[in-house]
């Protein structure tokens, strides 16, 4: 079991009061928004009424989650300034999507509510069902570590050392998330994401200011030089991230996060028209970049602070280098915050981070539940589900997914590195999805068989997980060389695209005479 970093904390009962007041207010908003829930369109995409500014807030409110902040801070802690490359390529990727409308504009023009809905339009119902299952399974598994991250954050920030107390708090939080998610649907998500974005963004910036003032810029730079050396600054350095990792990040953090990951794409579907979609991504590219860089810098500050603390350095560093213990290094940022943030501000930051935690959960819960209803259950039943049945089923699924997440994250002992787990579970979905979206939107000859092959190819991404490779004997000792995770993810992506092309050429759709132009829904371009 990972040791708990216990350096004391500034978190007091006053800070707990701040946190509770915020959470209660958030639930009240969700309940209030319930009276606006009408049809499924309202429930899922806020009646397609999102304007650009609230659209940006809700997109970033979901994407700047506690897990992203925790993982990014850990990357800054363990990788130094070189980790900033992830944020840089993420921003460039979103900017490219905003300038070109790559995938998201043609997708919005078709008026679909989900990506699997596009699969049916383009490739048929069977592809939609298979794609929906893969998407939901990958997405729900991807969420499996979120509660664990929340527990580690709470432990570090509040000084809780009793594992049972943390588990109870996590259970209460998932109940709160389920409550306002089930009641309010997308509308309450939009409002709570807005509040969370405002609180978290100003909170993180203030934290960075206080960190630099407390530590000093020179001390921060010198610590990175001492601990990480050249790899702490150069992301292409072979002893650090390396070129293949940078390319993998350009794909996953860049293009995939902006144009293929469902929660971001759903926000595009919720935009008023395609002009708003492009504007959304242009402005959000700033957020896509800074959501990594700002918490990474806090992680670098945590490195500086804890390196000079005798108790922490004994646990976190060995021979002057960061230890290879994910559970321990994930604690670095919250423990650092607990020591430098004053009373009151630490409560606000804690509330903001927990709000980010909940907004991420409710957005993803809504996303995966809607996929299972709209793209699996309803198509399988021949489209005969009534509006009421779909909403009720979505709410039941949200509850069941929440139960699974609670069990999986709190009581199932995860042994994988958190980033590896997230990257692999996401790749199960996006390696196939990218091929279907690019092929389906931009290549008339993309066929159903090609789509099936590309979707199924995503399962190969599991080999990127070290325990899977070890279980199959694919270790450097046996092979004589190392298979890096980045190579597997990039290779699977390339293979999926290849299978889409080859499968489509060898097995073209017989009904190619069907209309290729899909009906443009009202309000697409004004």
């Amino acid at each position, binding site marked *: 079991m990972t040791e708990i970093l216990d350096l004391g904390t500034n978190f007091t009962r006053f800070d707990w009061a701040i946190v509770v007041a915020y959470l209660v207010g958030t639930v009240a908003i969700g309940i209030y928004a319930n009276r606006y829930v009408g*049809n499924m369109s309202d429930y899922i995409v806020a009646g397609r009424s999102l304007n650009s500014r*609230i659209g940006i807030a809700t997109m970033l409110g979901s994407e700047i989650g506690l897990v992203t902040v925790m993982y990014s801070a850990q990357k800054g802690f363990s990788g130094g300034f070189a980790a900033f490359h992830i*944020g840089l390529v993420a921003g460039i990727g979103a900017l490219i999507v905003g300038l070109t409308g790559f995938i998201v504009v043609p997708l919005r023009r078709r008026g679909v509510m989900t990506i699997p809905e596009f699969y049916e339009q383009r490739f048929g119902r069977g592809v939609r069902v298979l794609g929906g299952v893969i998407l939901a399974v990958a997405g729900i598994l991807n969420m499996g570590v979120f509660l664990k991250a929340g527990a580690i954050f709470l432990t570090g920030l509040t000084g809780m050392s009793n594992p049972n107390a943390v588990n109870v708090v996590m259970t209460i939080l998932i109940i709160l998330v389920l409550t306002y998610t089930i009641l309010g649907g997308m509308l309450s998500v939009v409002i709570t994401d807005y509040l969370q974005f405002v609180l978290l*963004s100003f909170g993180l910036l203030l934290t960075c200011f206080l960190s630099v003032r407390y530590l000093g810029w020179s001390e921060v730079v010198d610590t990175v030089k001492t601990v990480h050396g050249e790899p702490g*600054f150069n992301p292409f350095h072979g002893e650090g991230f390396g070129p293949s990792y940078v390319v993998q990040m350009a794909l996953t953090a860049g293009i995939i996060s902006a144009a293929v990951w469902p929660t971001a794409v759903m926000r595009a579907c919720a935009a008023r028209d395609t002009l708003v979609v492009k504007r959304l991504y242009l402005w959000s590219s700033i*957020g896509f*970049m800074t959501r990594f*860089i*700002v918490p990474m810098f806090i992680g670098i500050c945590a490195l500086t602070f804890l390196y000079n603390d005798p108790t922490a350095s004994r646990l976190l560093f060995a021979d002057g280098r960061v230890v290879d213990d994910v559970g321990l290094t994930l604690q670095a940022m919250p423990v650092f915050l607990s020591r430098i943030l004053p009373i009151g501000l630490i409560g606000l930051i804690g509330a903001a981070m927990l709000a980010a935690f909940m907004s991420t959960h409710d957005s993803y819960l809504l996303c995966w539940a809607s996929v299972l209803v709209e793209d699996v259950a309803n198509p399988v039943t021949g489209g005969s589900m009534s509006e009421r049945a779909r909403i009720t089923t979505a709410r039941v699924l949200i509850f069941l997914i929440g139960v699974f997440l609670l069990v999986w994250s709190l009581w199932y002992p995860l042994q994988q590195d958190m980033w590896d787990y997230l990257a692999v579970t996401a790749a199960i979905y996006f390696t196939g999805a990218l091929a279907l979206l690019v092929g389906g939107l931009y290549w008339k000859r993309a066929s159903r068989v090609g789509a099936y092959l590309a979707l199924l190819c995503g399962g190969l991404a599991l080999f990127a997980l070290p325990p899977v490779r070890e279980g199959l004997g694919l270790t450097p000792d046996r092979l004589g060389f190392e298979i890096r995770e980045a190579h597997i993810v990039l290779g699977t992506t390339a293979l999926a695209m290849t299978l889409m092309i080859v499968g489509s050429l060898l097995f073209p759709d017989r009904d190619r005479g069907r209309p290729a132009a899909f009906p443009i829904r009202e309000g697409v371009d004004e």
Partner: protein
Amino acid sequence: MNSWLMFWQVLLIGAFTLFGLLAIIVAVGGLFDIRTMFRRVDAQHDADPTDHQSAP
């Protein structure tokens, strides 16, 4: 190493500046957007009352 450090320094300052400006714009503008959003949803319901169900 120094050239990389300089690059990341510039990027960091730019990130802080842009993020701060974005936060201010979204915070203020988002309030107006929320009000407009609820007006639009109400208008959609008024236009098609049969498409609205009572929430449980």
